[in-house]
């Protein structure tokens, strides 16, 4: 596989990312990389809902990792997911870039589901975050 930022496909579906309690409100953490991908998956909790995004800033076609240190994905005010290449800011729940080099572009959403025991898994694409 040559693409660094390969979107999730059949190969990733069913893989476990974390437990839902691993990510507190307003926090972001990186998990993986999943089998078949070079990039981690960022899991963020916003207004109670978990969202997952591929750790790949869309500024460059191959996508580049966004943290400045392990799990350090947020800006100083802790209001936005941030690419620490050039300080592009992304909304935690929509993935939209609102300031920076990739203005108007979006992060790649990873669809997730929470199992009975609270484990967070990658699933086939669907809409929105999960509780």
């Amino acid at each position: 596989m040559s693409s660094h930022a390969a979107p999730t496909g059949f190969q990733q579906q069913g893989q476990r990312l974390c437990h839902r309690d691993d990510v507190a409100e307003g926090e972001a953490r990186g998990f993986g990389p999943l089998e078949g991908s070079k990039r981690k998956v960022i899991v963020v909790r916003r207004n109670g809902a978990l969202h997952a995004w591929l750790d790949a800033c869309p500024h460059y076609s191959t996508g580049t990792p966004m943290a400045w240190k392990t799990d350090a994905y947020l800006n100083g005010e802790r209001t936005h997911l941030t690419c620490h290449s050039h300080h592009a800011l992304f909304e935690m729940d929509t993935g939209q870039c609102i300031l920076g080099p990739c203005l108007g572009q979006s992060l790649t959403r990873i669809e997730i589901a929470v199992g009975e025991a609270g484990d967070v898994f990658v699933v086939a694409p669907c809409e929105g975050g999960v509780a």
Partner: protein
Amino acid sequence: MNIVGPDYLVFGVDDLADAIEYLTAWGLKPVDVTDRGGLFETLDGTGVIIRHKSDPSLPPPLPTSNMLRQQVYGVRSAADLDAIEAELGKDRRVTRLSNGSIEVKDDHGFELKFQVTIRRELDMPAEKINAPGAPAQRKPNEIGVWEEMPALPRTLSHVVLFVPDIEIATNFYCSRLGFVITDVLKGAGPFLRPKANDDHHTLFFIRTPDYMKGCEHLAFHMGGPTELMVAGTRFVKKGYQSFWGPGRHKFGSNWFWYFNSPLGCHFEYDADMDKHDDSWVAREAPMGAESSQIVLFEMREKWAPGGPPPGAKG
């Protein structure tokens, strides 16, 4: 105008504690750093100054998400400050500060300061190598690497700026301040060195849309490629994020390793950059992966092969 190169870069950050942690881990020495920020020095005294972005002592921010607030250039003498003031005073406001330094904006609105350089002269050996056919650089019994070997940034090397208009930027630094173009990556921009510095570049421009204007990266000279890779490996082991490298650029021949940072731009360790004089004729190459580097590697976890396969008898 004997401009030596950048003495300091000044940033207005959104989290001082993160920036202080990062700059210290990078290998810079905090000097008079408080909870309001301060100076982080390389071995020759050049470095990075940070303040919170709301600090009123900072020059105004760029109209982008970039955190760079000012580039402080060192010059050889007070006469050079007078010459810069006379030249730039022709068409813009130049502010003379009480310590003799001057503040001014370039043609893209980047805040500049010029001062008699604070660089301390270094007296340290470069990385020494042994090769057949050449005199040994290390004496018998002098080892090349050891676990605790020092690998600290020696000096602030160069700044790379995202600018919307290469012609305007080049004209300002070359025609007004005496910088020289050493090479050009077509589609990106030129490498520049100032008159009083023989490094291949202390400044490089990359053409971008206006909303990206700012600092792309700043770089620090290390003592050689081994120091660069040792420092970078230690940095990754502490959890910091590699962006590009290690590798070796073609133009400038410098080794490189770039990292993400909480200062809104990349930080680069570099080593073994080419030197030039006025007889050099600038080369051109199209911007791209081939022209950007002669080799590129990616860090991996340490590993070692063994003898027999695992579980082999005997």
